[in-house]
Each structure stands twice: as structure tokens, then as C-alpha cells.
């Protein structure tokens, strides 16, 4: 078994990834590509994706987790974060694991913002299975929620920081740069599905997360198998405090692993 930090190229940029490879004697020749959420949710998610990758590696899967351009350890300044480039990054991540020659099937696990981005990418990229965890269904509503959280932060925390400065609201959300162009991309984002090149889709939703039934129905038109599961444990994606903690419920990690292993 080996775990290798690396950079791979995507649209001319260096994308950071960690490749988890199983031991030679226990290699299922299946790969899992993990698509993370947006930058402000990465802190909450990072430990969970490491746990998923480590356990899948033990079960014989090759796993690639990566940071989108201008997020995490990848190249690019935070203000260059761009949803179109993210889709290229997902495509190149899938191509990267397929290029090893040993992988016969690929599963994509996409969480939150990764969900609509992966759906769009898989209109042209063939995979065995797509697992969506609490996907963002409506970019416009997601953006509004982030704006509300940012406004709440400015009001609720003045005792620890006098946030009421003119620059506190300008082109930024929750600690990250947020240009008008990115906001426009976000408003256009949705889980509207074209012809998907995945054999099966699993929709996992945590308690209190957005209802995925409409998405399930939309996907049924183009995908043979669409399953939906509600998993115990609240992820509190909309909670300002909760974004600072790695409190991803173990039930959701376990359910994700079961879906990848047993379908």
C-alpha cells in the first residue's frame, strides 16, 4: 500500500492530490475519485475524506482526492477560484487515475458543491458509479445562504473582532475571495441533468439536508439505477460555527463506503 502526495496537470495548472494505492495482492482495479466541497466547507470535510480514502485503500481501491484550482494546496490565488475550471479538474482527476492502466472502473464521490460540478462533468466522462453527498441543488440559494452566514458573522462576532469595517463585505464570503464573476457562475449552477454517463447514482442526504427526491426523479430519465438514502447525523452545513470543526458523522462515512463496496 502506498499514499503519495503529488501534483497533476489540469488546464495548465498544478493540481494537488493524494493518491492512495492498495497493496499489489489486494487490488480490485477500481478507482474512487473524491470531489470536495467549496473552499469554506473544506475544513469541515478534510478529515472525513481522509478517512474514506484510507478505508477504501484497505479494501483494495485506488483513491484520488484532490484540491480544485485556487483551493487547498493547488496552484492559484484564492480569488482565481472558478467553477468552470473545477469541472476541468474533475475530468483531469478521472483521466489521471484511468491513465495508470490498472483501473477498470471508476466511482466518483462528490460532496456539496462537488455534486453539481461532478454531474456536469459526467455528461461527457464515463464512470461506473456516482455518489452525491448532500449536493448543492440550487447555486443561487446556496449563494444567498453564504451571504446570510457572512452577514451573521459580522453581526454576531463583533466582540471578538470589530468587523464593521468597509472592507469586511467587499467581494468576500466567509474568509474567501468572491468575485462578481464567481457569484454569476454560482447563480447559474444547478443539478439540472443532461445525459449522464454513469451506470448508477447514489444520493446520500444527512438529517435536515435538502430533499433529494426531485433530483432522484430527474436522474431516473438518464441513469439505470438511482438510489436515495437518508443517513443519521446532522452535518450543519449552514451553521457558521460548525464549519470550523471536523464533525462529519461516522454513519455517513460508513454509508458512503458501503455504497462504493456493495452498491
Amino acid at each position, binding site marked *: 500500500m502506498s*499514499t*503519495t*502526495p*503529488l*501534483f497533476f496537470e489540469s488546464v495548465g495548472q*498544478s493540481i*494537488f492530490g*493524494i493518491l492512495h494505492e492498495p497493496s499489489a495482492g489486494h487490488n480490485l482495479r477500481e478507482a474512487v475519485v473524491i470531489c470536495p466541497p467549496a*473552499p469554506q466547507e473544506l*475544513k469541515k470535510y*478534510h*478529515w472525513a475524506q*481522509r478517512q474514506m480514502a484510507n478505508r477504501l485503500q484497505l479494501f483494495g481501491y485506488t483513491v484520488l482526492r484532490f484540491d480544485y484550482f485556487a*483551493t*487547498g*494546496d493547488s*496552484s492559484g*490565488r*484564492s480569488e482565481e477560484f472558478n467553477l468552470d475550471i473545477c469541472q476541468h479538474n474533475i475530468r483531469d482527476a478521472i483521466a489521471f487515475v484511468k491513465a495508470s492502466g490498472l483501473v477498470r472502473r471508476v466511482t466518483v464521490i462528490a460532496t456539496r458543491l462537488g455534486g453539481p460540478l461532478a454531474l456536469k462533468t459526467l455528461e461527457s466522462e464515463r464512470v461506473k458509479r456516482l455518489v452525491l453527498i448532500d449536493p448543492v441543488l440550487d447555486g443561487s440559494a446556496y449563494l444567498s445562504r453564504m451571504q446570510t452566514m457572512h452577514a451573521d*458573522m459580522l453581526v454576531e*462576532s*463583533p*466582540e*471578538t*473582532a*470589530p*468587523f464593521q*469595517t468597509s*472592507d*469586511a463585505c*467587499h467581494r*468576500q464570503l*466567509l*474568509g*474567501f*475571495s468572491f468575485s462578481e464573476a464567481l457569484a454569476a457562475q454560482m447563480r447559474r449552477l444547478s443539478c439540472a441533468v443532461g445525459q449522464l454517463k454513469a451506470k448508477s447514482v447514489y444520493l446520500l442526504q444527512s438529517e435536515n439536508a435538502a430533499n433529494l427526491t426531485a433530483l432522484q426523479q430527474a436522474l431516473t430519465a438518464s441513469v439505470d439505477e438511482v438510489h436515495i438514502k437518508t443517513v443519521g447525523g446532522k452535518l450543519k452545513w449552514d*451553521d457558521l*460555527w*460548525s464549519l*470550523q*470543526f*471536523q*464533525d462529519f458523522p461516522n454513519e455517513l462515512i460508513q454509508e458512503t463506503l458501503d455504497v462504493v463496496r456493495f452498491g
Partner: protein
Amino acid sequence: MKQVAIRFGRHADMIGVLALPSGPTLVVKRALLVWNTGISHRIGPQRMNVEIAQQLTAHGLPVFRFDLSGRGDSSATEGAIQSAVLDVQEAMDYLSAQYGYEEFILHGLCSGAIEAHYVAAADKRVVGLSMIDTYSYRVGNYYWHYLKKRICSKQAWTRLFRRFQGPKTSNQQQAIDQFFVPFPNIEILKTDYAAFAKRRMPCLVVFTNGYEHIFNYAGQFQDMLKGIDLTPILTLHHHSGADHLCTIIGQRERILDRLSLWIESNYLSPI
């Protein structure tokens, strides 16, 4: 800036990213090291450690950001003693052996700052110490400033009222549990700073408003270490406009500019 992904450590179980300048490098082989804040991974709050790398490599200084054992992407080695000092020393050993770096500047925020202090005290390869929201003791005029501010503050009265209404929420308690790191004993601090002064090791100390509950006036750090002449080595800034995790971009940029200026004035001598 060029970045290299690295696995290192005695058991090759730690992970980091070395950011190298694309332009001229320094005469002396130096690098800045930065690692986790609390349990969050090496990129830092709001990707601050990556921004540090982008800014300082532009000045010719390589920056290595990595995860301590058991945090972020680094594994906890079974049976090994977990210690930030040992982990940082392994990073220094690796960079010396593979890249020829001889001197190191350490930078940390919160728990990372306290860990940086311990490493600087233990290892003479460390030639600079930069800390944001580090240890502080309520000495000197702290309580005078505390009272003055509280009496005139509407928020303080509101907070006091809330405290009588009920205990801390579970989220707030979780925050305290996850990020609490004990401060070094004040007598040990005095001994360490006497040694730092003897080594002529520059120290940059920045406090944000997030630490106002333990640091509330500019001279408090010197009052805490009374008897030691810190003038030749200490640069101290009180950024009362920033919160603990430097969330607002403008404030974060101001703090990073302070760090760049400090690096520039103390270490940079391009070829």
C-alpha cells in the same frame, strides 16, 4: 512559485508541500516552516499558509507547509512519541538533507505559535520566530485596560447579561475543547527569551482582537517578560481590527504584509 509535494519523516508518514521561489533565492540557505493550527490541516485558516507561501516565495524565501503527525494528511506512527518538536525537527532534517537548507524561520498561529516557541527553544537551527495569537499572561496594566474597556462597552454588558442567562452552547464548548493548548510557564518563557536574546533571534509577535481576553495593550508582552531586554529582537503588533482566524481578507493581508516586512528587514539578501 513552484510547488513540490513531499513525504518525509523517519517513517515517511508525514506530508507537506514545499513552495520554491521561481526567481533568485537567498545567499544563506533558509526556509520558513509552517504547520497546523489546532486540528485543521496544513493550508491554515482560510488558506492563510498558502497565501504566506505565495507572498514569501515572491521575495525569494522557500516555504514548507506540512502536517504534524496524526493531523491533516500525516499519519500517527504507532508506538512513536507524538511531539510537535520532534515532528518539526524531522522536517528540518529532511530539508537539510534533501535541499541543503541550514537555517529555519518558524511561523505559527495559535497552537502552532506555541509549538513554534518550543521548537525554537530546543533547536539552534531556528533563526527566527513568528507567532500570531500566542501565549500571553494577564500582567501589568491588563486589568486596568480590561475594566476601562468593559465599563464603556455595550457589548460587554450584553455578554455579561447572556452569561447569567445560561451556560456556553455546545458549539462554543466544542471550540474550547478542540483548540485549547496550555501556555508555557512564565518562568520558562523568561529563560527562553533570555536565550533568544543571546542568540539574537528576531521574534515577530502579532496579537489580534480575538485574543483580547488575554492581551489588551501594546506593552503587555514586554511587561510579561520584565527584566529581559527584548528591544533588539522583538517586533510586536497589536492588530485590533482582525479576528483570531484572520477571516476578513483586508485584515489578513495587513498581517501578511507585516510578516513580509519583518522577513525582508531581517533575512533577505538576494544574490
